[in-house]
């Protein structure tokens, strides 16, 4: 479901393997290298670290991905090429320095909780404010479902304010918003609570210093969220505050999902489809649709295996640029949601 994860997992696995090679073949102080070889190895280290840390990149276009964007084939090939070069060189050469204790050892695949995250806020033209929330599923592998209710609630106001119940592993950025009135005070808060396996997180959001976001424009790179239209004649949506539509289908019957998406500044966009809520599994014919310039319509099908009320989350962003390039601003993507009633 996470378009970035498979590629990232490959990369992390590769780097971990590289470290193993280095430790296994060249125990501490066991080898001395000619300066040129040491230099080559360090370049490999740099490439490896770049893959995990954007501050270190030589080419910021290579590692500009976040969960909302999926690397194209060319990007994936570049990454795998770097990884492959690193692995080959490290098999034959010793490093200048090794990581002995990897902080990733603290990660756990399953059994942990999910916390909301407060992403930030931005003012709206009508004087209201939009608060943006995401989540952090602490598990590296396990997908977690928490139905709306005492363990998945927003307050004040209705318990159900459109939050997700289906949490893919790790970080989800800016997946739903709450609009608060113009008189929302600096000390007022909207709190999203999630509880799972006894781990309870109540994360308040408000008009906090350091949390104002440039949701609709990342000026340093002149980047804007694409336009998303969820239905014929529907509004043109830009940013995290998405449009909601409704439809119905029977169990096992493919449901065609068609949206229009485009960038107003001449960039190619992609559209991703996720399960957001629902009692059963959702199978997408394609969970990512890349749109070339001049094409606006993205179509996939979703098949549901269990009756009930579902929500499909639709997200669009630029194909080659993502939240990473905007400095992890809460920009520049657009959200949409489809409520699907699935009957037997």
């Amino acid at each position, binding site marked *: 479901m996470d378009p970035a994860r498979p590629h990232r997992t490959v990369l992390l696995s590769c780097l971990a393997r590289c470290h193993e090679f280095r430790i296994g073949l060249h125990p*501490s*102080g066991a080898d001395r290298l000619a300066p040129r070889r040491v230099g080559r190895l360090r370049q490999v280290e740099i490439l490896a670290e770049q893959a995990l840390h954007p501050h270190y990149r030589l080419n*910021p276009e290579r590692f500009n991905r976040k969960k909302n964007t999926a690397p194209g084939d060319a990007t994936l090939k570049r990454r795998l090429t770097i990884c492959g070069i690193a692995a080959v060189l490290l098999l034959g050469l010793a490093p200048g320095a090794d990581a002995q204790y990897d*902080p990733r050892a*603290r990660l756990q695949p399953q059994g942990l909780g999910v*916390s909301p995250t407060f992403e930030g806020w931005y003012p709206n033209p009508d004087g209201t404010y939009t608060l943006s929330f995401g989540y952090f599923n602490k598990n590296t592998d396990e997908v977690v479902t928490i139905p709306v209710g005492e363990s998945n609630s927003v307050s004040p106001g209705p318990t159900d304010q459109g939050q997700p119940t289906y949490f893919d592993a790790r970080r989800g950025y800016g997946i739903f918003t709450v609009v608060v009135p113009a008189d929302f005070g600096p000390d007022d808060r909207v709190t999203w609570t999630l509880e799972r396996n006894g781990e309870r997180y109540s994360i308040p959001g408000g008009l906090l210093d350091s949390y104002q976001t440039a949701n609709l424009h990342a000026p*340093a790179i002149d980047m804007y969220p694409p336009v998303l239209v969820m239905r014929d004649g529907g509004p043109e949506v830009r940013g995290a505050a998405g449009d909601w539509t409704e439809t119905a289908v029977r169990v096992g019957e493919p449901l065609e999902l068609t949206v229009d998406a485009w960038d107003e500044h001449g960039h190619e966009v992609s559209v991703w489809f996720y399960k957001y809520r629902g009692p059963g599994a959702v199978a997408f014919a394609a969970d990512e649709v890349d749109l070339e310039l001049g094409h606006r319509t993205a179509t996939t099908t979703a098949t549901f295996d269990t009756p009930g009320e579902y929500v499909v989350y639709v997200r669009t962003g630029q194909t080659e640029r993502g939240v990473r390039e905007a400095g992890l601003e809460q920009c520049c993507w657009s959200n949409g949601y489809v409520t699907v009633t699935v009957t037997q």
Partner: protein
Amino acid sequence: MMNRFPTVLAVLVTGAAFLLPGSGISAQEAGEDLTFHRDILPIFQQNCQACHQAGAIAPMELMTYDQVRRYGRILRNRVSERLMPPWHLNPHLGVQEFKNDRSLTEEEIGTIVSWVDAGMPEGNPADAPPPVDWPTGEDWQSAPVLGEPDLVIYTKPFDVPAEGNDLWWRPRVPTGLTEDRYVRATEVLPSFPDGRGVTHHMLVTAVQEQSVGGLLTEWALGKTGEIYQEGTGKLLEAGSEIQFETHYYPNGTPVPQDRVALGIWLYPEDYVPEFPTRLRFFNIAPEGVLAIEPHSKPIYQRQFVMQNPVRIQSFQAHFHLRGKGASMEAIYPNGRTEVLSQIDDFQFNWHNNYIYADDAAPLLPAGTVLKFSMWYDNTEDNPNNPHPGDFVTWGDRAADEMGHFWIGVTDLNEEQYERLVREREAITEGASAGASTAPGGD
């Protein structure tokens, strides 16, 4: 609306001025004899006025008796807590000799505390030292030592708005070099005066055929330039380009067409330093791993083994608003451990780069493990924390977090290492050589 620098500075200045204890050095009797003009002003000239003058980065001037007296109780607190001047290393752990040390000695702190406690007597103006002829914020800090830089490269202009969240500007600019040259020193100079208030940090990468093994330099608010030891430098190739990454932080004043300057001092043509050096990145709390729970104080650690001898040139930790402390510890091949440097009270506005003195830069034998630790404070105890109730993950924004070190590392071969050790021993012979300045553990 969002103007965080003043907020943070206000917290720094006003925090608990009357609640914290003195340094323990204060002596009322001694304070009765202390005067501003004779005893206090020289300390402020030496350690404070570079920033605390008109048009400089500090929020208040500390040039005259009246100005100092107005903030006397706050100053007493800040210096006794070692939060000002901004030098946040533990004074009792690790190497204490640095090229850019701006900390106060215990005696200087005691003098200020005693003077404040004694009622801040002014004394006779005739006792005052002559005023210092300060350079402006338009001047290179390294210029008095090195002269004007050989090469000045500017970022492309960028309009910094008055308000809003963090911004990153990443232009790429040619160096204009037509032949390979080695870098002797670098310095980043934000535009003056407005640019200095909005430029938080900058990463400078040389884009060229042969990597310099990390960044060319990194700069953050409060950091001085980098000057390498004689015989130590970084290669900058003909035809190279500079990839800038400037982190802007709007502070209420728009800065149109802002440009940040990179000054580079070069070794003479055809000069090849014996010790090519690099600024290494040690990522302790990587993206995808860093997770800070609400109201928590987590610690992250990571270890790296040096496969060849090294000389550690500089020490710098990078956090955001929840960062609290950081340490670098050496575990020598014989098992002995030693803290090389430790930051006790990290301040987001001061990403100090601690540059070890030439005769104190740690020399580490092959096989030494560098153990890095970073600890966070996502509670109400942290006055810089914008939201103790948030679950914080990795990100570029100040409201998100990071955790890594920038360490200046010079790689050595065995012959170089042994030679430098002998030279170090010769220097320290007859003195009680600190363990941190001696070769590690053998």
